[in-house]
């Protein structure tokens, strides 16, 4: 159900939207408010609360969940592609502003908030709404057993024992000056081993004893699930990470009433509440929309609606049961995924095939040009998607452009090589007998190059199906949505509910193109799928004496 909602939300192209949303669109009299989140559980919950609160006051809402990371989410907000998302003052300070503040200011969350919100409004014309009421700071966590054994309560205690302990930290925490680097400087924490770990596996690594110390967030639901102890930051090293809604200049200008609505949440969520909500989502696997609605109701911000029948997944039903329950959603996501791939691939064919043909006639620049397209392939997808945001915002359009760019190289390469190497004897004979360059292209080179061109297109198609899962990071939807959300929530079933259909889709697309390839193969290499009528007309054959 929630995927169907986000399906409706996530779009830049009205046409695609209409095709896919199967009547779910409401009559819209005003521009929808675009609510986004970053790809982790708490951000999903807060964004959903913003969205439902706005909807309860009559606003239409578009949800863009799981936007890449801070750069992508904030980039989208700044460009006006997104109206509001939950952010943290410490992140704004360190990751966006890159400001350093004196310790006396850092120790005071209110002073940090004042600094950050003033700087954002002058630099970026974006506004921080009053804080929601809780902090989600970095938390250095150990198991209760480790804490007891080494008598750990504070980070200073940890520094004393760190030479005996192994750590598993997220990669960015290891490198950041407000992460391990700073901890080493301020506390002298130097673990025996530091392993870079993905957020989703950190907790399992600690639980299984593979590492002794991990970084986490103070409101993490998983801290409760694994019964971990967070160590006290006794030297106030970490800046305060106060959660707040950050809104675009555009929303403030056009919809002051929406701002007033969002402010209703300010100061209403304390740390215990947030940890409890995160636990319901991350540990108990409750539906995000349900959790958000029940909390809004409990806060008296939303009337107890009818649609709160528990969507808690039947965990007993097993993986296939889970997939079956979500079949409609998965089908819709697959259709959208396929549409993204088809549009990007078609556009790439329309550009790269003529390009390859043109390069064959100007071979001097062929290799440099194709080489340049090849360089595009080496840009990590996330980076390419991030580059798109300042130019094209978030949603379907930048995703299509990125996928299109990735598909160009294999198709252009296949076309160029195929046409260049097509049976040189046949081409030269055709020339010597008086065919024009165009006739040689259409009658000889293209038909003979068809298998190589199709190989390029098939490669591009499979790449595109894979890359399109990343489109979810910039809010374009598709099968990447459950993958991104599943990664954020450490929910393997959810990841698989996107990854498995994506893999099957790649196979299916390749299979269909293989069939097309067979039909386009030069006649002499075609397997006997169909037969051309033989063009011998015996009545016209006359005796040699007639010649």
């Amino acid at each position, binding site marked *: 159900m929630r995927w169907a909602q986000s399906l409706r939300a996530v779009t830049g192209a009205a046409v695609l939207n209409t095709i896919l949303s199967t009547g779910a669109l409401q009559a819209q009299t005003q521009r929808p408010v675009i609510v986004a989140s970053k790809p982790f559980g708490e951000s999903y919950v807060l964004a959903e609360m913003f969205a439902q609160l706005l909807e309860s006051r009559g606003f239409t809402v578009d949800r863009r969940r799981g936007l890449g990371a801070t750069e992508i989410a904030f980039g989208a907000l700044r460009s006006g592609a997104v109206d509001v998302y939950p952010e943290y003052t410490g992140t704004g300070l360190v990751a966006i502003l890159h400001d350093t503040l004196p310790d006396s200011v850092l120790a005071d969350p209110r002073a940090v908030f004042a600094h950050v919100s003033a700087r954002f409004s002058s630099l970026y014309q974006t506004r921080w709404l009053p804080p929601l009421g809780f902090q989600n700071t970095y938390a250095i966590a150990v198991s209760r057993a480790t804490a007891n054994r080494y008598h750990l309560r504070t980070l200073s205690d940890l520094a004393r024992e760190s030479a005996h302990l192994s750590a598993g930290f997220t990669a960015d925490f290891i490198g950041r000056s407000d992460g391990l680097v700073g901890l080493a400087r301020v506390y002298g924490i130097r673990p025996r081993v530091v392993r870079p770990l993905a957020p989703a596996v950190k907790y399992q690594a600690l639980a299984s004893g593979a590492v002794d110390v991990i970084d986490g967030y103070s409101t993490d639901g998983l801290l409760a699930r694994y019964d971990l102890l967070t160590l006290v930051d006794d030297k106030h090293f970490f800046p305060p990470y106060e959660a707040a809604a950050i809104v675009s200049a555009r929303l403030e200008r056009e919809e002051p009433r929406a701002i007033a609505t969002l402010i209703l949440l300010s100061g209403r969520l304390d740390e215990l509440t947030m940890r409890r909500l995160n636990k319901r989502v991350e540990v108990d696997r409750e539906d995000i929309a349900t959790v958000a609605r029940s909390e809004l109701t409990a806060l008296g911000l939303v009337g107890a609606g009818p649609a709160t029948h528990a969507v808690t997944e039947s965990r007993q039903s097993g993986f296939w049961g889970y997939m079956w329950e979500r079949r409609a959603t998965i089908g819709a996501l697959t259709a959208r995924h396929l549409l993204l791939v088809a549009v990007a691939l078609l556009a790439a064919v329309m550009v790269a095939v003529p390009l390859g043909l043109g390069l064959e006639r100007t071979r001097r620049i062929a290799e440099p040009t194709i080489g340049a397209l090849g360089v595009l392939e080496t840009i990590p997808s996330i980076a390419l998607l991030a580059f798109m945001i300042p130019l094209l915002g978030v949603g379907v359009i930048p995703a299509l452009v990125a996928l299109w760019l990735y598909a160009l190289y294999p198709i252009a390469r296949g076309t160029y090589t195929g046409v260049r190497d097509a*049976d040189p004897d046949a081409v030269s004979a055709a020339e*010597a007998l008086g*065919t024009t360059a165009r006739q040689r292209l259409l009658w000889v080179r293209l*038909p003979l190059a068809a298998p190589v061109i199709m190989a390029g297109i098939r490669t591009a198609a499979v790449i595109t199906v894979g890359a399109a899962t990343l489109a979810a990071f910039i809010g374009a939807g598709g099968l990447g949505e459950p993958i991104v959300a599943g990664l954020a929530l450490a929910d393997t079933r959810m990841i698989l509910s996107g990854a498995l259909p994506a893999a099957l889709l790649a196979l299916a697309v390749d299979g269909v193109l293989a069939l097309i390839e067979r039909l386009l193969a*030069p*006649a002499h290499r075609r397997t006997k799928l169909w037969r051309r009528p033989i063009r011998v007309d015996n009545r016209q*054959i*006359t005796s040699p004496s007639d*010649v």
Partner: protein
Amino acid sequence: MSASLSARNVVHRFGNVVALDGVSLDVAAGQATAIVGESGSGKTTLLRCFNRLVEPDAGEILVDNRDVRLQHPVDLRRSIGYVQQHGGLLPHWRVLRNVELVPVLRGMDDANAAAARALDLVGLPAADFGSRFPHELSGGQRQRVALARSIAARPGVILLDEPFGALDAISRADLQGSFTELRKELGLTTLLVTHDLAEAGRLADQIVVMRRGKVEQHGPMQALVQTPATSYVAQLIEKARAGLEPLLA
């Protein structure tokens, strides 16, 4: 129908390499001339001047006493037959369609019939061979189809570049016989490139020996054998003879 061929003081360079160094040549209408020489002698370059696949740097090329530059290359090529060493049949077209190519290019109404007639002339009746793909034929049959393709539109002139060079000895002898008959029957003016002096003697009335972009000698086979103009021609004849004698002894 047939036309004469002439080259007058033709010069052509590929970069710094002089491929043709003032070459002159005449082929009377309906006659056959073979250009003989080793690789790099310029023989193929000279042949390709006649249908403007090569544009000489200097000198003139005449077909039927008309400078070839007065005709659009595409039109010129459609009026001249051409066979190359590896046939160059379009592998994805069936035999009949391959042979129809030039008649279709020239917009002939009876392209299909013209192609069928040409196939009959080379001994591959369209009813049996027309619907095959080139890869379903033997090497000799493929060269026959290439020959049929080059004569289907009834050109007055045919250019052949090592047409039988890639065939086994038996197919080669067969095809040489068929070609000679065909040429005489159709009165084709023929210019042929070969590295094989014996083949030249069998197929042509006149022989031109080329070396390093120049003509060493031009005359009938008998004249070459009796009075070789240069030591190179004498060597060439000696080698051809030496190849046969041990077998005849």
